[in-house]
């Protein structure tokens, strides 16, 4: 049926561009995703304790006056100006510091980590504080720019003297170089980056404001919904909308931007239409997908349903736009991100006075998406039925494959869908393939990299030499400095889990006895076997 719309030339220009955008999207969501619990915690605290919250609390919410007679004096306060121009001490509370410092610093740390491991994360965090205090707006964007950038700079600086530090001085040099680079970048970001980011943030906010002022906010769906189906949802949702929305919450206590991407209505409408008017496997799978999507909040499961009938994107756009329009009319919104985009998460984050608008936005977007989908599905139903009768592939399988290709890796929810659709092959996880090729670099890891690992490396080097194996580098390091570019890691048993975490792609061995562990002989054998295997492969190929 729709195979012609699904087939794409591999490595076409648009595909390559899409991969790049997606990689960037994955990077953005890699910074935000791990910190979603912090966003949610902030959302819950905000929902509870701010002045318009469920349990308003001036001390925790940070709006109470600490100068009032009998006010609690144990909490941190700041001097603020009242409406009448007088100043008073106001409680700092949790809401402000979390959104100003905690969340951007967490994002910076994750971003730095992606670029340059734990060390990158630390330097990124130090540098980002410069942007935060150099500006007056919440620095989510600044954290996303400065964090990875700072880590990258650290990586470059380290490369300058990599391998040239006298053994025994590595730790000293590493500590101080990171401290100096982090400190300098922090000052540099204060003066150099913060004003730029403030301007960009203002510009993006300006677009949203422009759309809002001109009642064009629903037009965002034209961008958001297709992006979602191409799995760019996290880049848009977490990368742009959530930070902007978080800023709006600071200003007005709620934001409908949280619902632009997270509204489960459009997906529900499309899946309901499939349940009633679909054919074949798509029809029988849709009810299960509804549970996962609407209640579980994993929107990914409805993407293939759109991909196999691209006209349905119109249903998604119109549904999403309806939801936004409803929230605009009712002035309703959420106080924090609804993640995952489940109906429960949406309701949990709904601002106290917004229940009518938010619920109506979900219901109306569902109805609109359902009606449009129904028209599309009914229009092609006869052709689809004929295809199913002719025993041809009904498109779902191909669409799932296409969806996975779009995502770049297999998604658990999609795999479940595929199993449900045809009860077949389990999907393979993309994570962690331990090293299997010839072994060229072996690292001994111990706690500090000063004693035990030195001895272990000496012994193994000697054994390899005696076995006549050359061309293998054996070094020693602290577990914390272990990098993922080595072939084999040997560590004390109680450190092996940490080693594995640091170098997931390396092979790992544990030793209890550094002096004459049977592991050494095993490693010598392993090195020899792998070498023969690879020589054999080259000979036959």
């Amino acid at each position, binding site marked *: 049926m729709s195979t012609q719309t699904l087939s794409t030339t591999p490595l076409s220009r648009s595909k390559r561009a899409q991969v790049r955008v997606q990689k960037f999207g994955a990077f953005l969501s890699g910074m935000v995703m791990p910190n979603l619990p912090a966003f949610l915690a902030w959302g819950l605290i905000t929902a509870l304790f701010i002045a318009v919250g469920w349990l308003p609390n001036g001390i925790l919410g940070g709006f109470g006056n600490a100068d009032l007679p009998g006010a609690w004096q144990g909490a941190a306060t700041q001097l603020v100006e009242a409406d009448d121009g007088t100043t008073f001490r106001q409680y700092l509370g949790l809401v402000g510091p979390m959104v100003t410092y905690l969340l951007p610093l967490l994002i910076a740390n994750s971003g730095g980590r992606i670029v340059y491991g734990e060390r990158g994360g630390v330097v990124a965090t130090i540098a980002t504080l410069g942007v935060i205090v150099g500006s007056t707006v919440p620095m989510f964007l600044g954290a996303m720019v400065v964090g990875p950038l700072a880590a990258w700079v650290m990586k470059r600086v380290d490369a300058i003297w990599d391998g040239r530090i006298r053994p*025994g001085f590595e730790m000293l040099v590493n500590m101080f170089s990171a401290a100096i680079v982090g400190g300098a970048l922090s000052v540099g970001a204060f003066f150099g980056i913060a004003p730029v980011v403030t301007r960009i943030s203002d510009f993006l906010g300006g677009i949203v404001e422009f759309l809002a002022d001109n009642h064009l906010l629903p037009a965002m769906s034209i961008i958001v919904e297709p992006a979602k189906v191409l799995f760019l949802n996290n880049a848009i949702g977490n990368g742009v909308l959530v930070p902007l929305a978080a800023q709006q919450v600071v200003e007005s206590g709620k934001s409908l931007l949280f619902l632009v991407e997270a509204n489960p209505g459009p997906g529900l409408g499309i899946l309901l239409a499939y349940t009633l008017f679909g054919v074949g496997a798509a029809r029988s799978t849709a009810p299960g997908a509804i549970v996962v999507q609407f209640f579980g909040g994993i929107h990914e499961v409805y993407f293939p349903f759109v991909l196999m009938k691209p006209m349905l994107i119109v249903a998604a756009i119109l549904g999403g736009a309806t939801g936004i329009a409803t929230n605009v009319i009712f002035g309703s919104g959420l106080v924090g991100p609804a993640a995952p985009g489940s109906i429960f998460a949406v309701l949990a984050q709904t601002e106290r006075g917004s229940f009518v608008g938010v619920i109506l936005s979900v219901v109306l977007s569902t109805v609109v998406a359902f009606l449009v989908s129904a028209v599309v599905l009914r229009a092609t139903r006869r052709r689809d039925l004929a295809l199913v009768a002719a025993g041809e592939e009904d498109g779902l399988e191909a669409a799932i494959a296409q969806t996975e290709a779009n995502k770049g890796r297999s998604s658990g929810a999609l795999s479940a869908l595929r199993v449900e659709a045809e009860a077949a092959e389990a999907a393979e996880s993309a994570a962690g393939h331990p090293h299997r090729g010839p072994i060229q670099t072996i690292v001994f890891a111990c706690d500090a990299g000063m*004693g035990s690992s030195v001895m272990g490396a000496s*012994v193994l080097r000697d054994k390899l030499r005696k076995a006549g194996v050359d061309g293998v580098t054996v070094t020693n390091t602290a577990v914390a400095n272990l990098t993922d570019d080595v072939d084999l890691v040997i560590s004390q048993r109680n450190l092996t889990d940490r080693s594995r975490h640091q170098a997931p792609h390396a092979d790992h061995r544990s030793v*209890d006895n550094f*002096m004459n562990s049977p592991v050494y002989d095993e490693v010598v054998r392993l090195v020899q076997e792998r070498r023969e295997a690879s020589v054999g492969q080259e000979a036959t190929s």
Partner: protein
Amino acid sequence: MTDVLAADRIVLGGTARTRDDAVREVGHVLVDAGAVRPAYVDGMLEREETAPTYMGNFLAIPHGTLGAKEQIVRTAVALVRYDEPVDWGGQPVRVVVGIAGAGDEHLEVLGRIALVFSDEDKVARVLEADDAVAVLAAFEIVDGS
């Protein structure tokens, strides 16, 4: 090598009966030699608590934490041998090598000690040596190989 591990820093009749006392004993040899300030010994004990330095084949190599490094005056290695094994977290230890490493000179010595202790025949030679000079000789065999 004799600079880092000299005969006057080799004690053949250690008296400690517990791990912590053994760490203190070898630590005091380093202190008496003027290689470390007394506070370094606390760092050695601390390190032993977090990550025991038992290496296998009757050998333990206590050394300070990274934070204790500034208590090192100069790089030195000391060795205390025990006639009866000391219980090192359930493992028998007869040779305790205390390390004060400020630079990289000790790494070579450590490597040599490691090679001796990975060979049980050579371990026996260290355990049976009659005096400090014979202990050094046991390591120097490695030196010449």
